[in-house]
């Protein structure tokens, strides 16, 4: 069996048993990237030299017992909106085409301290604005399960890199579904933690009240182990929450007896593809057979989540992206006439269409005369959406539904109609508005070998219930990473 088919935990164990060295793992990944990334385009930057140097350092620390954790020596890919000291971080935008951060994000520091080895930076929708990874300045990423299709987005490069065995796990970020939806499209496991669980320090902001970093990986055990490493209280992020229940691997228990699962009827209405519906309901049956108590209910307000999200996210984006002005970093226009003309030309040439669309919408909904009617209204609807989830979680331990209405669309089919593209986020977006944890787990394969994802949603800080249910599902033979793509797996 190829080293590349190991999960992160299996690899780390094999390194400790001296079956492999860290260098073996890094070289295997680098050679896989050379072989397949010309087709898939998962990476914007591959740090071959840095990764090999880090591999030697980490190996030494494993050998002398300084690093002992379950991610020691495991090659990881980082989404390109997460700052890495000394390593190009572009947000897949022309405006940051040459930006080299002087510091690393807290999640990356946590990973490095645990001995994970950064291989490179993954492709994404520009500034995480998109659902297909086609808005990247560096060209689209292709879905490794079927390269005629998109990998989803915005963390499409991270999801594809895991699916294509071009890394052992990856970090992504999720503002409206950007981890869960590509995980679903690529047939990998992805988790968006509760808002505040993972520090946002060093995550280049899109919608600050919604953004959260999380893992994309091969199975549920890896997910729990990665979460234990990246979740931490960080005084540098004032919204970071101090918790003493980050021991997620304790939830890897194959038992869902008596667990109350709510199925929102609103998530199974028109617009949902039959093959997705069938796969999701089949997965629910597996949990039912294992003793979970399943009940349908009306979540309500589902149709209002997308307009609420786009108002709030665009407003925050317009403010967050003001910092890109051609002075402190990144691209500056060649010719200009004075300061303001330089700002305008730099930004107009540096940002892509979708980013400009959202900055303009955001500027409008925050402008005097429209603030109350749009922005404040959206914040009120957000309160209603949160209340609807609070009511649901007074009755259920977790909520289960689809991640996206369809499997991955074909390349080039989504960008022409922005609102149609936004609709692919209908089941994921309200989770961000309510600050909840959400998870995507592969639950089947549809036509054209395209994966289908199961979404598990929990109450705030109840990631453990999601991990437990997902693990029980996986133990029951639920769809596993190795089942895809005709790999032999043994």
């Amino acid at each position, binding site marked *: 069996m190829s080293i590349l088919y190991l999960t992160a935990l299996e690899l780390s164990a094999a390194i400790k048993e001296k079956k492999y060295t860290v260098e073996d793992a890094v070289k295997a990944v680098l050679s896989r990237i050379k072989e397949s990334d010309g087709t898939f385009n998962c990476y914007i930057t591959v740090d071959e030299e840095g990764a090999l140097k880090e591999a030697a350092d980490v190996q030494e620390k494993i050998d002398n017992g300084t690093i002992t954790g379950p991610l020691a020596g495991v090659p990881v890919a980082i989404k390109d909106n997460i700052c890495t000291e000394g390593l190009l971080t572009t947000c897949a935008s022309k405006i940051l085409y040459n930006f080299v951060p002087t510091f690393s994000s807290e999640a990356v520091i946590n990973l490095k301290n645990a001995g994970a080895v950064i291989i490179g930076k993954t492709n994404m929708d520009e500034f995480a604005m998109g659902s297909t990874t086609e808005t990247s300045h560096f060209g689209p990423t292709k879905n490794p399960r079927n390269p005629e299709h998109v990998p989803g987005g915005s963390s499409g490069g991270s999801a594809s890199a895991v699916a294509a065995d071009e890394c052992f796990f990856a970090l992504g970020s999720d503002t409206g579904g950007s981890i869960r939806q590509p995980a679903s499209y690529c047939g990998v496991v992805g988790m968006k933690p509760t808002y505040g669980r993972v520090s946002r320090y060093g995550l280049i902001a899109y919608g600050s009240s919604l953004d959260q970093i999380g893992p994309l990986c091969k199975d549920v055990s890896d997910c729990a182990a990665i979460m234990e490493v990246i979740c931490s209280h960080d005084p540098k992020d004032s919204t970071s*929450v101090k918790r003493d229940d980050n021991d997620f691997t304790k939830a890897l228990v194959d038992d869902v007896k008596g667990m109350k699962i709510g199925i929102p009827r609103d998530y199974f209405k028109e617009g949902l593809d039959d093959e997705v519906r069938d796969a999701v309901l089949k997965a629910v049956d597996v949990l039912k057979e294992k003793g979970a108590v399943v009940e349908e209910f009306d979540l309500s307000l589902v149709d209002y989540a997308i307009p609420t999200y786009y108002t709030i996210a665009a407003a925050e984006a317009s403010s967050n992206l003001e910092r890109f*002005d051609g002075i402190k970093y990144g691209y500056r226009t060649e010719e200009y006439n004075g300061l303001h003309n330089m700002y*305008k030309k730099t930004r*107009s040439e540096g940002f892509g269409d979708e980013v400009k669309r959202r900055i*303009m919408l955001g*500027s409008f909904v925050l402008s005097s005369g429209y603030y109350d009617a749009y922005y404040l*209204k959206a914040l009120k*609807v957000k309160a*209603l959406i949160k209340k609807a989830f609070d009511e649901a979680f007074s009755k259920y331990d977790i909520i289960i539904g689809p991640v996206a209405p369809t499997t991955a669309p074909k390349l080039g089919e989504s960008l022409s109609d922005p609102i149609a593209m936004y609709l692919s986020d209908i089941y994921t977006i309200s989770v961000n508005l309510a*600050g909840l944890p959400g998870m995507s787990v592969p639950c089947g394969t549809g036509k054209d070998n395209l994966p289908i994802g199961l979404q598990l949603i929990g109450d705030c800080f109840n990631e453990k219930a999601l991990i437990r249910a997902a693990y029980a599902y996986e133990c029951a033979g639920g769809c596993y990473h190795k089942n895809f793509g005709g790999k032999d797996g043994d």
Partner: protein
Amino acid sequence: MANIISDETIEYVGILAKLELNEAQKEAAKRDMGSMLDYIDKLGELDTDGIEPMSHVFDVKNVWREDVVTNGDDRENILKNAPGEKDGMFEVPKTFD
């Protein structure tokens, strides 16, 4: 389309957003923003009287810290990212005469 975005509005948004649009881009932006606002107008169906706007999902208070410098002097590396640099400072275009 219910929301018609005027030339004045798109001009104003361009000033707020610090974006320069040519005529074709302006027309596209008017169309896109109009259809987005039509979509967002759906929120008007909901009665939100008496509902407190929710900016943060948890009841968190402001976080204070002592005003102490904890990071070192990283000027050289920071300025390496600047498009224009002069004498250890960011170089900007002339802002007034």
